């Protein structure tokens, strides 16, 4: 599968080490649809390729990717500006189960940059608000300055999303919660027996979030996670992202927890 050329339309810094690129296909390439939770392989020419979740609203005509600078490819990507060209392969992988949520309470739990793969889903959930039961979004970040998409939180709240944001450390000017995101779960307003939970964040955060959700009574089959692994080919051939019997690029990145519970938390995987 060859990368298609996409042109950067907008670039903005989100936090100190994260940035968002909005991209559209060049005139010889066609736009493609995607479902929230899927990812693209983004190719910085001459440097390399990395898997990045699509964080755009699926109704948007642009693709959007929020990325943290962690290695040579994302560092080079952070230096690209409007008008630069990026190679794109995708979309790949499974998506959040948005269509299966009617009549259910929905709890979305995100940690740090883990909000990016959930952003498109949150847009869709807010649009489907009337079909859902309670709609709760719990978000944790290191500090108030590390909160992603902070300008979008208030409009979402006005559209019926119950939002609780917590940070690890804060100055006295911060009026929200302080503590890890798992502390919000026990008092969040949802009916555990009729709830679907969608979680994305570092694996340690997801592990303890699952623990708290199950303690509250949410069944394993109603919990969905976005797993991150070392994805290379993105089509299930190379084996870099093997996770037990699954390939994260092809069978994931969104998994139902009961299907991966045996592998989740095993150090060697």
């Amino acid at each position, binding site marked *: 599968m060859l990368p298609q050329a996409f042109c950067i339309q907008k670039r903005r810094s989100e936090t100190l080490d994260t940035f968002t690129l909005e991209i559209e296909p060049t005139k010889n390439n066609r736009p493609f649809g995607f479902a929230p939770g899927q990812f693209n392989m983004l190719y910085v020419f001459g440097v390399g390729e990395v898997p990045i979740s699509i964080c755009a609203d699926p109704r948007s005509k642009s693709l959007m990717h929020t990325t943290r600078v962690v290695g040579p490819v994302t560092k080079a990507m952070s230096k690209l500006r409007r008008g630069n060209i990026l190679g794109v392969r995708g979309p790949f992988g499974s998506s959040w189960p948005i269509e299966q949520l009617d009549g259910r309470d929905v709890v979305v739990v995100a940690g740090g940059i883990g909000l990016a793969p959930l952003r498109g889903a949150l847009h869709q959930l807010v649009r489907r608000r009337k079909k859902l039961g309670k709609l709760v979004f719990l978000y944790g970040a290191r500090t108030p300055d590390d909160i992603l998409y902070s300008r979008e939180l208030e409009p979402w709240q006005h559209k019926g999303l119950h939002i609780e944001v917590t940070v690890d450390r804060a100055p*006295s000017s911060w009026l929200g919660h302080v503590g890890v995101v798992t502390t919000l779960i026990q008092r969040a307003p949802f009916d555990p027996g009729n709830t679907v939970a969608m979680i994305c964040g570092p694996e340690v955060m997801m592990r303890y979030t699952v623990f708290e959700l199950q303690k509250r009574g949410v069944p394993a089959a109603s919990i969905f996670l976005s797993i991150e692994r070392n994805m290379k080919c993105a089509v299930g051939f190379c084996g870099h992202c093997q996770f037990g019997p699954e390939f994260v690029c092809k069978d994931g990145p969104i998994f139902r927890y009961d299907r991966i519970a045996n592998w989740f938390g095993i150090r060697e995987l």
Partner: protein
Amino acid sequence: METLEEMIVSHPFWAGLNPRFLDLLKKCATFQRFDVGQSIFQEGGNADHFYLIQKGRVTLHAFVPGRGTVTVQTVGGGDALGWSWLFPPHQWHFSAHSSDPTEAIVFDAKVLRDEAEQNHDFGYELTRRVSKMLLQRLQETRLLLVDFYGFAS
């Protein structure tokens, strides 16, 4: 409006408490409201009350020279506030103020301590519940230490 007894019984901290201890708790409890920004206790002050938050949010904070006031933790409805009242020297380690309009059941800490000394059944119930709260706070603090939101590079 809930009576004080109903508030005590329905607060998660006292869940499952033997009803024979209820009279004692009622006698040393009052209901209090705190406005936004109102001080609840100050670092170094005498820890002579125990607070069970009904509604609202309380911010625990410390003054750090050169950095100003730093928020250590927030607690909300259904949570217990503070444990310094149970252990000598009975002085608050942090300061607390309400960051939302807050309602709390406030217990006289000396009455609780004295009763726990004289009546070990009650003392066991009390320390078991405070230990559970301490364990939860310790686990939350340990999660902060592992950089909960840091992805592998």
